[in-house]
């Protein structure tokens, strides 16, 4: 750290968020820099998904500040965050299972004819094109999404995020249901997005994936920021140690109680 002269494009300062008596985020700090891939790693329940839902305006923080592109938002809405170019693939994918691929790809940004009617034909063709360009194969794009496999659904959600054209892309465990081949295709896609200058925030449990693509790693634990460093200054072994040690440190604390 300390080498950053650039301003973060996305920043969270001292953010707190509780669900009832569960403190999901306890003084969370997070920064992502323009054009970089920032990986967020941490165990299940450490607050990663909550963090990104606050960045996209889905959840309102109890305290703290969210900064996007130099603007501070006290109560960020989904719309505002989208207008700033933030697009997310949520862990639950946020797909409407009853709609088909085109219905989901264009949810909230439908193509119209005569200004009021949905242009189903054009949306279907655009969806076909998009999936083909991204090398995502879905046998029948006219069937409801509920009939697709977990991996296909993830691919669809990723395609939607890419298609929105936002320049800050957030992916919350985007390949967790994918096979090896599908995953490597998506990783190539991410590399392409990075090449194109997009800022990417990636949550993943796959350390090799993290080291393969990220520029910076942010470690969180129990709703707290633990450490952040450049990927090239670390190794999977070191990161693994850091996460496991944190776990032991905490269980020692608990034992001391």
């Amino acid at each position: 750290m300390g080498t950053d002269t650039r301003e973060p494009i996305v920043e969270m300062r001292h953010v707190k968020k509780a669900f009832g008596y569960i403190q999901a985020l306890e003084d969370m700090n997070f920064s992502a820099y323009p054009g970089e891939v920032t990986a967020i790693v941490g165990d299940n329940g450490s607050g990663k998904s909550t963090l990104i839902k606050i960045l996209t305006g889905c959840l309102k923080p109890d305290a703290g500040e969210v900064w996007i592109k130099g603007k501070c938002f006290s109560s960020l809405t989904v719309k505002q965050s989208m207008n700033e170019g933030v697009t997310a693939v949520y862990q639950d994918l946020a797909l409407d299972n009853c709609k088909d691929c085109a219905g989901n790809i264009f949810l909230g940004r439908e193509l119209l004819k005569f200004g009021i009617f949905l242009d189903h034909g054009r949306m279907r063709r655009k969806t076909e094109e998009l999936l083909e360009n991204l090398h995502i194969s879905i046998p029948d794009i006219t069937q409801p999404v509920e009939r697709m496999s977990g991996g296909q659904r993830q691919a669809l959600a990723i395609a939607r995020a890419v298609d929105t054209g936002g320049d800050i892309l957030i992916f919350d465990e985007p390949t967790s249901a994918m096979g090896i081949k599908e995953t490597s295709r998506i990783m190539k896609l991410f590399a392409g997005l990075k090449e194109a200058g997009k800022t990417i925030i990636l949550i993943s449990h796959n350390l090799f994936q993290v080291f393969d693509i990220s520029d910076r790693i942010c470690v969180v634990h129990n709703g707290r920021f633990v450490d952040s460093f450049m990927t090239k200054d670390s190794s999977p072994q070191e990161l693994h140690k850091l996460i496991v040690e944190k776990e032991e440190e905490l269980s020692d604390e608990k034992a001391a109680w």
Partner: protein
Amino acid sequence: MKKQLGKYSQQIFLFAAMVIVCILLTIRSEYFFTWKNIRNILEAVSYRLILAIGMTFVIASGVMDLSAGSIVSLCGVIMALALHGGMPVPAAVAAGVLLGIALGAVNGLLIHYTGINFFILTLAVSGMLRGISLMITDGKPITKFGQDFIYLGIGRIGEIQLSVLFAACFVLVSVPLMFHMKWGGYVLSLGGNREALVKSGIRAGFYRVTVHALLGAAAAVVAVIITARLNSAEPNAGMNMELDAITAVVMGGTSIKGGKASIAGTALAVLILGVIRNGLTLMSVSSDYQQWITGFLLLVSVLISEIKVYKIKALIK
């Protein structure tokens, strides 16, 4: 082709059931398949169809509204008072429809902002609205209106009653509204996955309120038709009407969980229930059977839709 058939299996079942019932009734009663009787059936189902179309949108959005019947009665009562107070017919009708829209919107607001289960909430609202109707009227019907108003219930253009035209308009408008416009798409997503809507930056509350307002408007139109037809606004009007509407909607293949809807299915289901009601009356069968058959058909349709879901799940595995 096979895929398309699978998609519409419930509607096909309903259509087949209707054809069979019609054939049986034609054999049993020579009066059944006459224009006069068909016209009777259409006039009898018209207002039920209007309410069922409104309910189709609400069920598509993932909830039900048990207060629709009470909205019918309160709108009827208020319109009757307005007419008796000397208000011109168009103004009184407009007031009734606006009241229906407002009451529907209140349901939507309550469901959206309180998060209370829709079933309990609309049941409570239903009780309150019915109570208001009874209090205003002292439990007695308000009767006798001018010919202008009565015309709205029994007037005909050529051979077709106005109420049938109203119902046809509802059906014709609701198809593009549900399947070819943003509004309907979002209403369906409200039932399919509300989170997906919110995460796409769409204001779910707006669609929750407007979909209930639409049902409120439909209920008010029903109130106009039945008040005019009976030449009387009854505080007990519309009793259980929402249950009939829900039955037809579910029979028609609209998913109880929301997200999927069929306007044609709703229309078919309302029609078949009307045909059965008519046939039983023609054969002087007790109306108890009508209840039984309605319940039975509902059960069979739900079973068919469940089997469809089951098949799909098996396919994924």
